[in-house]
């Protein structure tokens, strides 16, 4: 098994807007180590979301290759991609994106339905996950009945539902106040350590990157620098 769980080679994504080419990603090469907590930092518009979309198989690159657990993402068909999203990846969004008509418990059960897990087992696991994120007393609340921080914690539990190997969190604290945001980040870090799940969190907020094993700095669709052993802050290497 390879050391890096994600590898991007010469990855580019271009958008054509009114005769102009926008290079949302411009020849990106990165490796992400299995089990690491990686922060992807860059100003708004630097290409973080675009990179996530390529890694998660949500969109196709203009050029280049993404390997996810040694699978070449662009070679997968619709069924394989759906399977990958269901079993291997967990997504966390800035806007939480819980299904509004479902309770916390049902939201967490949904990915398990797609994975074919029987009802009883689903329920048991969903309750355990909600307890894990400290929402054991909010099982039957719908998103509108939860605070922003609670919604994001439900989203976090949902991302973990099928024991993914990677969690992609795109600005997970973008709609939260600093205090609540920090709590979410620490929860992510705890889960990362406890379960060994690889986490990549995009942000433009420098307050929340201290927990990272590795920080990738982006600007204008390019990787500016990669800092491994971020917390030790003793080693810096180029991209």
């Amino acid at each position, binding site marked *: 098994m390879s050391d890096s769980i994600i590898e991007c080679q010469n990855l580019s994504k271009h958008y054509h807007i009114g005769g102009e080419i926008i290079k949302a990603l411009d020849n990106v090469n990165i490796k992400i180590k299995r089990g690491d907590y990686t922060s992807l930092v860059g100003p708004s518009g630097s290409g973080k979301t675009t990179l996530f*979309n390529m890694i*998660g198989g*949500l*969109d196709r690159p203009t050029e280049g290759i993404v390997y996810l*657990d*040694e*699978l070449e993402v662009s070679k*997968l068909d*619709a*069924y*394989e991609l*759906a*399977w*990958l*999203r*269901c*079993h291997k*990846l967990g*997504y966390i*969004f800035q*806007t939480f*994106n*819980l*299904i*509004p*008509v*479902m309770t916390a418990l*049902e939201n967490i059960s*949904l*990915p398990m*339905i*797609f*994975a*074919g897990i029987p009802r009883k087992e689903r329920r048991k696991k969903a309750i355990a996950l909600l307890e894990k994120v400290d929402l054991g007393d909010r099982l039957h609340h*719908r998103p509108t009945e939860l605070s922003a921080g609670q919604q994001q914690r439900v989203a976090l539990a*949902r991302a973990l539902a099928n024991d993914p190997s990677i969690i992609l969190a795109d600005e997970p604290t973008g709609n939260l106040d600093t205090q609540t945001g920090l709590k979410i980040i620490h929860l992510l870090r705890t889960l990362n350590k406890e379960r060994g799940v690889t986490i990549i969190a995009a942000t433009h907020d420098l307050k929340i990157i201290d927990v990272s094993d590795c920080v990738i700095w982006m600007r204008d669709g390019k990787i500016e620098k990669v800092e491994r052993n971020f917390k030790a802050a003793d080693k810096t290497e180029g991209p």
Partner: protein
Amino acid sequence: MNTEQIDRKVKLPISEAFFISVRQIRIRFQRSKIMIASIGLGIAFMTHLNITNVIFNAYMADAGTTVEAYQFWLLIISVFVTCVGLINSTLIAVYERYTEIGTMKCLGALDHHILELFIIEAFLLGLYGGIIGFIIGTITATSSLIMQLGFDVLSKIPIIDMFKYLGLTTILSIILSVGSTIFPALRAAKLKPVEALRYHV
């Protein structure tokens, strides 16, 4: 990992889909009411014309009167009006849920799962709208005939045939509801997850 380890099976059992759709209808009650009303009104109008015809013909059978042809065109127009209203409502209802569709795809849903959810919902809304519309149309038709011709008409109501009409009307209602949902839903289901997610705000 290699492709052989992917068993390709992402599932959405019909019972679960049904449960989710019922949820959607119940929780988005305002939206559901609008949908049921747009179907129900058209169906009520259609039923009114049809039942008036049926009872009136039975009443006049001795005199040997035949169906009034213009009512056929009224029926066609009422179906058409129902469709326009309905397509308008379904477009909005589907559009409102792009984020949800994108999210479900991120969780593993396939195109046909999304389509399935919308179709079950449309089926149920068509069913409710059809039954409610039929009841309303029947009540208005019989009351107006009673006012014009007296309580005699009640004895002319063909009870057995009424069930047949209820069945046919409900089927038509379901076809209209599912038919007007299928195209916006298909378009939404086919979106790439990023495209669906981009629509929010």
